[in-house]
């Protein structure tokens, strides 16, 4: 016997132990998200997936589904707030999409398209962040990091290594790697590691694959992130 919640009026079944996001994804309901990746334990940091449950905002990727929950997600107010969060992610880093190898394949960019972002709105912070080309096969560009910790989780949980971690605090949060030199090349990261392939943005890139797929033929050049992440079609 399956239980149900409703999302924007639609009945969505779920199983005990699933989160609202899990239930939504299974049913092909898209809730914008960046730090969530169904292959990993929920994290809850980007807050893009915030929904309203019985009058209260919660992160759908971490909130367990409970019988009878009335969830509001695709509503103007929440989409406006999600847009603001996306703009915040853009201005706190240095995202020069036209010059970025990830363009067209980038989830941050794709969510921005989806939410109708036309400008960064806030003044750019222009932080000084370091890029690291020391690894033979993998490039790390902190300018594009959104602190989703997917690389941290993948390295720890899948690869059984601990190549990545966060240091600093607040706006000075910083992605660090597991070596005394602070260089990626001095860690035990292998190009075959899961951690090298989970970054939703262009912060971690595989070397020598640049522009293998030309701009214009990339994932989000043709279909929306909603279609890609729910496996459905955008009506």
């Amino acid at each position, binding site marked *: 016997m399956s239980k149900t919640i409703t999302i924007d009026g639609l009945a969505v079944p779920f199983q005990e132990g699933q989160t609202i996001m899990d239930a939504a994804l299974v049913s092909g309901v898209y809730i914008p998200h960046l730090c969530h990746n169904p292959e990993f334990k929920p994290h809850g940091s980007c807050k893009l997936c915030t929904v309203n449950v019985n009058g209260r*905002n919660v992160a759908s990727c971490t909130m367990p589904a409970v019988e009878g929950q009335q969830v509001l997600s695709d509503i103007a107010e929440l989409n406006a707030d999600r847009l603001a969060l996306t703009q*915040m*992610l853009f201005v706190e880093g240095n995202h020069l999409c036209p010059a970025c190898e990830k363009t067209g394949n980038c989830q941050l960019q794709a969510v921005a398209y989806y939410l109708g972002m036309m400008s960064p709105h806030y003044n750019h912070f222009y932080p000084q962040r370091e890029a690291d080309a020391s690894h033979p096969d993998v490039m790390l560009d902190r300018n594009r990091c959104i*602190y989703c910790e997917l690389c941290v989780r993948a390295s720890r949980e899948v690869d059984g290594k601990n190549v990545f971690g966060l240091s600093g605090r*607040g*706006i000075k949060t910083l992605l660090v*790697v597991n070596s*005394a030199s602070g260089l990626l090349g001095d860690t035990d990261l292998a190009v075959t590691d899961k951690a090298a392939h989970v970054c939703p943005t262009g912060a971690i890139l595989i070397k020598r694959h640049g522009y293998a797929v030309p701009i214009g033929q990339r994932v989000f050049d043709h279909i929306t992130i909603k279609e890609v992440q729910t496996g459905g079609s955008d009506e």
Partner: protein
Amino acid sequence: MQQFEFSDISRILTPILARHGGDASRLLQVLLEVQDVCHFIPSKAIDLIAAHFGVPRVNVEGVVGFYSFLSTHPVGEYRLLFSGNITDQMLGKDELMQYLCNKLWVEPGKVSEDGLVSIASTSCTGMCDQGPAALINGWPLTKLDHNRLDLIAELIRSRKPVADWPAMLFEVADNIHRGDVLLGQPSEPGAAIRATLARGAKETLAEVDKSNLRGRGGAGFKTASKWSFCHAAIAEEEGGIICDVGGHPERFIVCNADEGEPGTFKDRVLLNSYADLVFEGMTVGARVVGASKGFLYLRGEYRYLLQQLEAVLKRRREAGLLGENILGQTDFSFDIEIHLGAGAYICGEESALIESLEGKRGRPRNRPPFPVTYGYKGRPTVVDNVETFACAAKIAEKGGAWFAAIGTAQSTGTKLISVSGDVARPGIYEYPFGVTVSQILDDCGAEGRSYAVQVSGPSGTTISWKEFERKIAFEDLPTAGALMVFRRKRDLFQAAQNFADFFAHESCGFCTPCRVGTELQKKIMSKIASGYGTASDLEELKRLGHILKTMSHCGLGSSAANPVLDILEKFPDMVESKLKAFAFKPAFDLDGALATARTITGRDDDWAHL
């Protein structure tokens, strides 16, 4: 600057690591000691510590980077941190700090060239009743003025060890001006435990329930419910009975002495002069939920209390009030360990506190599960405020009905209020709940006519003089205990800006709305303060406030806009008078863009500005 060879570092580390053992929950405690000796955490020390605890180096680096009192680069051998609360600022902190910097030839936030001294600001050190205050290598300095700073500069120049500085500089007074049932009626150590043992654990829980005690840390959650949830978690796991005494090894009692909310210093006084009462309350709690281990999470700023608190614990062990077989009861063992924080307001949030207790970055957890079911090391854990435990001890001793008769129906008992700002007698005032703000203002000798009061610190509420008849109570003005008073003509915008800076500095950085939102809020407030604000910035602040309140991961983010929204609503004139007369918003500050050029050329004349 001191250089450390590898052999030095391992020589320094070996005894420290040996003393702390191999459990990774000791990581933060070890780092604090290393910082003390080396004035930073050398990279090689990170390697050795990581190897010792068997944790990845990257995790140790993450912890070092999180806490304000730890650093990866050397700070001065003498590290002076001025308390940056608005009350310190109103007492002249900015000017005093500059004065000392000039005397010692050092720039604020930098280390002197010889590595001797560094001077910077830190978040409120909890000495608002005797500010301006600072910390010198972790030790509190109070009542700073030019004379004291002259002396301090002299002591530093002559390299006198801080331990040999005149005691007068470090005097911390309790400043209790009004006592009631907690502060005014002494309890015999052991009285509450005896009463609990005589009455029974389950019956004591019933008394705490009857007292209607609500948490004093701010949220006002009913204490008896929390304690029984912790129970229920155990009972569920074991199919056991509620209140099964017998000291199950794996449930925990944690006393939250992080007291990071600017303007709050009542826990400092409780721990200084009423520590027995607090430990007694923890022991009662332990008996009720069946815990055998407790922690006192003591904020780093209160490290000066550590030794005397350890002495109290020792005395209590000797008196049979702590340790094995408490008061001869063979099924009752409970002990308390003190754990230091290292400069992070977020670690007062209970789940971040637990992370920190485990030796990690203080990042609030996802909830559910809550600490009562999944807390320290994944075990059921009760986290309560210092004052809550003190109240619980009194209730165990005197009964729930006695306590419930004090205060109001929804807010029983008394509340300790830390009063600071523009008043004649700053300090601690204990009142039954329901007392009006105007009563407190009368009692503490608020100067002239007060204009505004910040209740419960930056995360609380700003009230204007029109609201002074409001009551301190969960149903009206809930408070964790801070009350900062502003007289007429005070620049309330400066206060709101100070608070906005505080939140940006203390955001843990985990979630987007708080990490970026608090920084945006800080930037806009600073833009307005420097005369570049326009009407659209006010709209932006309100919009940010909405996002912070509704999207944040924890209470820090969701309350970070409170002081800004309050001043916009209650004192719009104070903000509007700072705005530029015209309504358009310069997208780019040309003059600001020349700042780097001015620094490089060392010019600041009229021609170097647009």
